[in-house]
């Protein structure tokens, strides 16, 4: 399926490679709420398109890291560059899936209305979405399997359907770099599979997707890159090399209940080819 308009191929890759700006460059980022640091000196660089999982215990600053990268919370120090530019100048290339709880689902809008909001960025001031935008939004709804529900008020959806609505809105943005805050939270197994398939599809199109994630058992299966966060960045890199018991211990501390699952998760990774 042709998911998105083709991204222009870079001609003469050899000579450009040396000067190619990283997709994402987070440098020395520190964020504090009421003088208490929630992120401390985080460095993260992505040079190749990937599916990056961000894991860590509650209060580790995972959502804050995403919001800091998007310019939604002020940085105490450090900088974020996207495709070598400031975040503000690259907004058209960024897609966002916020946490489901961040909006009022009783708001009087339909599923199609919400997905159309993904096209507002390219529409610009005062222009209303027309037939072209509606057709594109319906295509996005097709991809998440919600086409039949386009007229529903969003409060009448199940949790998984609400999550997929947000995902369709992000796809409608036609971005190159996606930030997703717990897209798998509170969805059933079938929906989780559908969402994952979509993320893989995005990566195959050369896009990069950052995902805040909770379920450690699925980490090695879902993500090729991984960042372990607990206020500081504990480790980041290929999932194969950083998803180790030692790193997990450093990230989650001595919580035994968690560590039990960790052992299983690492074992599972060893078993997967």
């Amino acid at each position, binding site marked *: 399926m042709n998911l998105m308009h083709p991204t222009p191929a870079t001609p003469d890759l050899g000579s450009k490679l040396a000067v190619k700006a990283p997709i994402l460059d987070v440098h020395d980022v520190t964020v504090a709420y009421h003088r208490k640091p929630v992120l401390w000196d985080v460095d993260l660089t992505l040079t190749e398109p990937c599916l990056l999982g961000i894991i860590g215990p509650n209060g580790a600053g995972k959502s804050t890291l995403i*919001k800091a990268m*998007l*310019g*939604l919370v002020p940085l105490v120090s450090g900088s974020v560059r996207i495709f070598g530019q400031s975040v*503000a100048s690259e*907004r*058209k290339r*960024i897609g*966002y899936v*916020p946490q489901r709880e*961040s*909006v*009022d*689902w009783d*708001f*009087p*809008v*339909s599923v199609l*209305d*919400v997905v159309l*909001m993904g096209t*507002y*960025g390219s*529409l610009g*001031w*005062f*222009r*209303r*979405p027309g037939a072209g935008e509606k057709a594109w939004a319906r295509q996005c709804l097709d991809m998440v399997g919600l086409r039949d529900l386009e007229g529903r*008020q969003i*409060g*009448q*959806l*199940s*949790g*998984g*359907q*609400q999550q997929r609505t947000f995902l369709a*809105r992000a796809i409608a*943005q036609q971005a190159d770099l996606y*930030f997703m805050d717990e897209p798998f939270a509170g969805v*059933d197994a079938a*929906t989780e599979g559908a969402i994952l398939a979509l993320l893989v599809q995005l990566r195959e199109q050369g896009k990069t997707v950052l995902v805040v994630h909770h379920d450690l058992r699925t980490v090695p299966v879902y993500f090729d890159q991984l960042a372990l966060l607990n206020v500081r960045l504990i480790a980041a890199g290929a999932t194969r090399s950083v998803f180790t018991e030692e790193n997990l211990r450093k990230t989650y501390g001595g919580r035994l209940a968690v560590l039990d699952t960790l052992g299983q998760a690492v074992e599972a990774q060893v078993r997967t080819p």
Partner: protein
Amino acid sequence: MSEWLTYNSLIVLQGVTLLGACSGVIGCFAVLRRRSLVGDALAHSSLPGVCLAFLLVGEKHFWAMLLGAFLAGLIGLGIMAALKRWTRIKEDASIAIILSTFFGAGVVLRSLIQQMPLSGRSGLDSFIFGQTAGMIEEDVHLITALSAGTLAIVALCYKEFKLVAFDPEFAQVQGWPARLLDFALMLLLLGAVVIGLPAVGILLMAAMLIIPAAAARFWTRRLAWMLLISAGIGMASGIVGTYLSATQGVATGPCIILVAAGLFLLSLGFAPKRGVIAQQLARRRDRFRLETPLGAGEEPAP
């Protein structure tokens, strides 16, 4: 009825119709952004501004009093924002503080004015309970123009306001000046309050914003329809309320609000799907359905 329909009363009707539409539309955004109480605080905090304008200009100058109300409301807004930014006082507490402090100051100023040998003091009282009877044509033209301007801005920025009201963070990620748009909505709310004060009054203006919007929500699940229905309820309340006030010799504000409240009760009871009666019927239907085994499907949203 025919003797009531003079040229002047037709002008007044035109004014309250547009102001009803204006507060109905702006009220929707206030209710959806959970700012109903902010509207109440803005209305109450306008009283000292109205009184000071009266003192400065000396006699009743309609536009000066509206300007005074606007500036006082703006100062109230600024203090609420500062309390939120610099202290740990919660929003509901800061709203209560601003509302009562400003209104108290306004009542004191009003008492002082009443001890002075000034003319036109009754114009001041019409701001408190709302009175269209004393309005002259220029006053109404000002209200009409400001209401029409507010409606035009909402029509122009409908897409932007909808996005910011629903998901301000997403709007910001997309590059919209979300804070600025939100502030614009706040200014329009203040504007709608000020426009409505002379006819509806300080005490009841918040109701004029909240009741039509809350009633409209019963009839529809789409924002555009909610705005239109709320505007319609605001208009109908304005027209019928003004008529009742003029013919029965009662203050205008309470008449308008009582008509709006009646329309709210109708909506609450009889609106399809979301009304109380429709919901009860649906519940009764569901009770029968529950006796048959549930089909496979996703669990409903919490």
